[in-house]
């Protein structure tokens, strides 16, 4: 029975009771508790069910390495699944629910899986769920999805706020134990800018639990003194509840600060993601204890020895009245001694080593604790909690020598330095035979931009398990980090002297007892969260998996949300033994950030809602919004798709806009059109290289449509170029292409033709551009009041522009048309856009002017057979495919894409070419991207596809559907009828026609 002790508990405040609920049950804890310690204080040993076999599971650890105790925390917009109880600080009103069980935690139907464990071996999924294919969809997947997964995803929108912080420091120190504090002190004294982060709410780490002395005083006194010193240094910042999450290239690091998880009612952000650049990073991240592998090591009540000690001394909680300690090292004796001193019973210390004669074992014996050397736990007896263990010889197969009654087991398989942050960016490890652990190899650190190592492991994380050498190492690391960041050490900075009880050598034990029979091995857990047993790893080895990376994926060892913090080394030990290889020869798996799961909220930061991707708005946005705009995203812009009037559906609005523009006059906000000025003595020469046609011979005041291709010959942007002066051009681009085209121009100017005298400027947002389009367009402009421009067809013919004043606004009307109608696209200063728009509406009222949106624009351009970049092009289309030969110069020696278009494949007459498509039934509109098929099916049973629809609409002007498509050898297929199967029993037939459906001669636009 786990319970609260009458004394001990340095982290809790017994005067401040806190209420919380677990599965709806009201429970009490104290301020300073973690959810784990509070649950244990209430004898809630069982906290969850395992992933695969739904076995009852309890708390194993006291820190972020906890594999079992995951719960759903909070409610509604603050619900979060899979939260570790060991890293959750208790607060008043906390609500937690256990997960992965049905119908209840105490009684779980899925637990029958455990009877089936013989039939769920490693690679079970790979072996079983292969055939038939159809069974996947209807049988396997629903069952697996139903049974799989840990917690449930939240259903409400996250109620909290998150943010980023940016920090640039000389030295980042991760870990606030005595090593991290010492490193910070050493680095801080040099004047270097230091940031020290600690993942928990408290400083000092394990030293305060393990009775370490510093400078001949209890460690706590030194910690308090050091914190005071660090706080007084202006160059040092220290943060608790901030975890070093990841180390990346060139000294980039992420830290994860939890500001209000422990106090959810606080205002301000909940989490903060620190994006840090550090010249040097010191990892003082300590070590994590390994479990031992014996049968039943997953039964609630079996816990890491260090965690048992933490709960007793930090929180005043005993895990059991009678605790058996099982170990292969001296460190676990600290637990036995602590428990005995707290008045609890330790029936036996079971030590796998043949002798235990060090300082700590002798101390334990003096306290009257029975020490059994050369022994093992044969198995744990119990199901939802520990009832007893059997004592066996470590050398044997597990025959019971004696049954020892107990309600808790404290296990220690030794300690593994936390090398994650060292390894994230490529730091290498060495196997330390003496201490049976991987530790950072100082000769192979992760390298920074100058080629030197930028991560320094310190203290226990560097493999110094005892306090004295850890302290010396960490202080030196802090000093060195600062020096390498350019801050030389001050005089007289000697390292503090730490002292702890001496410990004898560990003896690696990967299986207990070493010859355990299959029955025992099949109940011996390596990875608690993913339910991987010793027998699974052995089976993987037997089936030929030699690489640790493959074994990991086959068995799922270490792939759970704890990323194998407890299981990886033990699994490696088993695998190495099975393969008869040395551990370093088998190697480790890759360590990847984050060290411990961080919230999606922190990763997203402020980038949500309106800030996720800011919307670009034209100067007329507000008017559109107030006048029925049905919005459409166009690249980063929002454009009106159409303007709905009362009682109108979208389709009706579009039809009205088209007919009104064709019959009267329409008004279009074309401000999103890209506008780039290209200026300089070589501007014409430059544009001749960029466009497929000639631009250098364009007359001043004239416009020309141009195409841009990449070096592969593929068309990627189009638009009208206007020659403003002898040495300057204005290039219009597609709405989405302005930035891309501008960058394209700069790339060629800077990296290829850098001696050409050309300057470019993207002036897209400097202008509002408004199209006045339709047979009555000229009348509208005249009614607006024109000064200095003759709008007549003779003086301002098609494909020219002029400058002057319209409605009292300085304006530049271009006679260009994307609709086939008489059209003036008028550019005015962005700030004058709204005034011009209002004036056009006012003057146009008597002519029936109406604004139109992008859909009307699309339909009208399709009626005219004009291409749209992104519809008729997809990055594999050359202008010749689109029948645009007329826009490709034959005179120019070179242009971007010319050589590529000469390739034999590009000359193939069977390439897909643009055609018009007229459906047999004029009311039927082909679906977008419908495939045209021809002839017999191919060998694989698929239809023989000869092309697809690129643009398709109903044309209200013509009274029938229109479409364009890219069809194999299309230009030679005029009059052919093609088949478009659009559903199982439905084929649409359409005739290949000229893609220009309306006014092929271009009379309407040229008046």
């Amino acid at each position, binding site marked *: 029975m786990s319970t609260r002790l009458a004394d001990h508990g340095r982290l809790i405040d017994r005067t401040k009771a806190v209420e919380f609920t677990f599965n709806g049950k009201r429970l009490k804890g104290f301020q300073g508790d973690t959810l784990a310690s509070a649950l244990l204080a209430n004898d809630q040993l069982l906290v969850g069910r395992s992933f695969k076999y739904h076995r009852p599971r309890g708390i194993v650890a006291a820190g972020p390495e906890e594999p079992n105790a995951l719960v759903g925390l909070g409610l509604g917009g603050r619900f979060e699944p899979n939260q570790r109880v060991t890293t959750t600080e208790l607060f008043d009103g906390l609500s937690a629910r256990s997960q992965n069980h049905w119908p209840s935690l105490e009684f779980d139907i899925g637990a029958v899986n455990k009877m089936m464990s013989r039939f769920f071996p490693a690679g079970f999924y790979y072996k079983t769920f292969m055939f038939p294919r159809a069974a996947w969809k209807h049988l396997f997947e629903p069952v697996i999805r139903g049974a799989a997964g840990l917690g449930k995803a939240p259903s409400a929108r996250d109620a909290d706020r998150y943010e980023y912080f940016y920090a640039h420091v000389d030295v980042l120190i991760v870990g606030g134990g005595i090593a991290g504090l010492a490193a910070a002190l050493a680095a801080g004294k040099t004047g270097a800018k230091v940031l020290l982060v600690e993942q928990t709410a408290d400083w000092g780490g394990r030293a305060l639990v393990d009775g370490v002395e510093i400078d001949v005083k209890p460690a706590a006194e030194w910690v308090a003194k050091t914190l005071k010193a660090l706080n007084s240094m202006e160059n040092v910042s220290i943060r608790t509840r901030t975890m070093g999450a990841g180390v990346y290239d060139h000294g980039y690091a992420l830290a994860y600060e939890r500001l209000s998880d422990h106090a959810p009612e606080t205002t301000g952000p909940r989490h903060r993601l620190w994006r840090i*650049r550090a010249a040097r990073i010191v990892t003082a991240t300590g070590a994590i204890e390994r479990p031992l592998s014996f049968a039943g090591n997953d039964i609630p009540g079996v816990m890491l020895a260090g965690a048992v000690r933490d709960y007793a001394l930090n929180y005043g909680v005993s895990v059991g009245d009678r605790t058996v300690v099982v170990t292969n090292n001296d460190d676990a004796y600290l637990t036995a001694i602590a428990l005995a001193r707290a008045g609890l019973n330790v029936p036996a210390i079971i030590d796998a080593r043949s002798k235990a004669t060090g300082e700590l074992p002798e101390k334990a014996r003096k306290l009257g604790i029975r020490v059994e050397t050369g022994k093992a736990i044969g198995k744990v007896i119990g199901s939802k909690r520990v009832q007893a263990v059997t004592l066996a010889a470590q050398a044997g197969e597990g025959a019971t020598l004696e049954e020892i009654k107990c309600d808790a087991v404290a296990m220690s398989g030794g300690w593994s330095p936390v090398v994650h942050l060292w390894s994230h960016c490529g730091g290498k490890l060495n196997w330390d035979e003496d201490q049976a652990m991987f530790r950072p190899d100082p000769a192979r650190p992760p390298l*920074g*931009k100058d080629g030197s190592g930028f991560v320094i492991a310190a203290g226990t994380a560097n493999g110094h398990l005892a306090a004295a050498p850890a302290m010396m190492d960490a202080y030196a690391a802090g000093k060195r980090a600062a020096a390498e960041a350019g801050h030389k050490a001050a005089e007289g900075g000697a390292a503090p002297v730490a002292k702890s009880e001496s410990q004898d050598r560990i003896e690696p034990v990967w299986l207990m007892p070493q010859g355990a029979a299959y029955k025992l091995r099949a109940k011996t857990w390596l990875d608690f969260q993913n339910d991987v047993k010793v027998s699974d790893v052995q089976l993987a080895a037997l089936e030929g998996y030699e690489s640790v990376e493959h074994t990991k994926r086959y068995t799922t060892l270490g792939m759970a949300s704890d990323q194998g913090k407890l299981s990886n080394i033990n699994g490696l030990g088993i695998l190495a033994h099975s393969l008869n290889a040395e551990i370093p020869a088998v190697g480790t798996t890759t360590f990847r950030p984050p060290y411990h799961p961080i919230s999606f909220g922190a990763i997203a930061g402020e980038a949500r809602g309106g800030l996720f991707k800011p919307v670009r708005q034209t100067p007329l946005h507000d008017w559109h919004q107030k006048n029925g705009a049905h919005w459409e995203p166009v690249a980063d812009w929002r454009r009106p798709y159409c303007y709905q009037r009362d009682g109108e559906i979208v389709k009706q609005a579009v039809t009205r806009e088209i007919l009104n523009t064709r019959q009267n006059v329409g008004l279009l906000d074309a401000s999103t059109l890209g506008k780039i000025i290209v200026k300089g003595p070589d501007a014409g020469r430059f544009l001749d290289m960029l466009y497929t046609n000639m631009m250098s011979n364009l007359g001043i005041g004239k416009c020309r449509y141009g195409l841009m291709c990449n070096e592969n010959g593929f068309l990627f942007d189009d638009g009208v170029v206007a020659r403003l002066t002898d040495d300057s051009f204005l290039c219009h681009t597609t709405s989405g292409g302005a930035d891309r085209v501008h*960058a394209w121009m700069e790339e060629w100017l800077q*990296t290829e033709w850098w001696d050409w005298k050309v300057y470019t400027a993207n002036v897209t947002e400097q202008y509002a551009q408004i199209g006045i389009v339709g047979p009555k367009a000229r009348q509208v402009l005249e009614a607006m009041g024109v000064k200095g421009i003759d709008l007549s067809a003779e003086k301002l013919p098609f494909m020219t522009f002029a400058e002057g004043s319209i409605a009292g606004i300085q304006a530049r009307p271009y006679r260009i048309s994307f609709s086939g109608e008489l059209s003036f696209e008028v550019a005015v200063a962005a700030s004058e856009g709204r005034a011009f728009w209002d004036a056009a509406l006012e003057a146009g009222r008597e002519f029936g002017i109406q604004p139109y949106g992008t859909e009307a624009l699309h339909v009208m351009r399709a009626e005219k057979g004009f291409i749209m970049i992104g519809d008729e092009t997809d990055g594999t289309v050359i202008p010749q495919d689109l029948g645009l030969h007329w826009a490709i110069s034959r005179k120019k*020696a070179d242009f971007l894409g010319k*050589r*590529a278009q000469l390739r034999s494949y590009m000359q193939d007459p069977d390439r897909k070419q643009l055609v018009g498509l007229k459906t047999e039934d004029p009311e039927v509109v082909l679906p977008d991207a419908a495939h045209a098929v021809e002839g017999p099916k191919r060998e694989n049973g698929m239809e023989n596809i000869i092309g697809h629809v690129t643009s398709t609409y109903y044309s209200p002007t013509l009274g029938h559907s229109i479409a364009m498509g890219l069809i194999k050898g299309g230009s030679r297929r005029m009059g052919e009828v093609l088949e478009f199967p659009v559903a199982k029993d439905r084929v649409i037939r359409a005739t290949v026609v000229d893609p220009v459906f309306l006014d092929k001669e271009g009379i309407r636009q040229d008046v």
Partner: protein
Amino acid sequence: MLILTCPYCGIDADETDLAPGGEAHVTRHGADASDDDFEAYLFHKRNPRGVHFERWRHVYGCGKWFHAARDTMTLEVFGTYPAQTLVPPKTLQTKIKKKRPDWKGFKK
């Protein structure tokens, strides 16, 4: 996340401020190129393990293109220099040779 020093504005720029542009010092082959030359220009890009010359643009900074010489394996940056050159600066080549004696030298 790399840091590269922009040779124009002198800023130590984070990778998020930069846009990569592939191999540097590629010779453009235009309209009259042979099939082999054009194929090599378009498709045969070097991607060595070790010393490499790359194009980068300080896109969220001064907007300039520049070249970086770095080790693709260790991520060590030997230097950056303006893009308006056909070959890496001599001093930089000497520096790389000193740091990587096995390096075969710059080849077009």
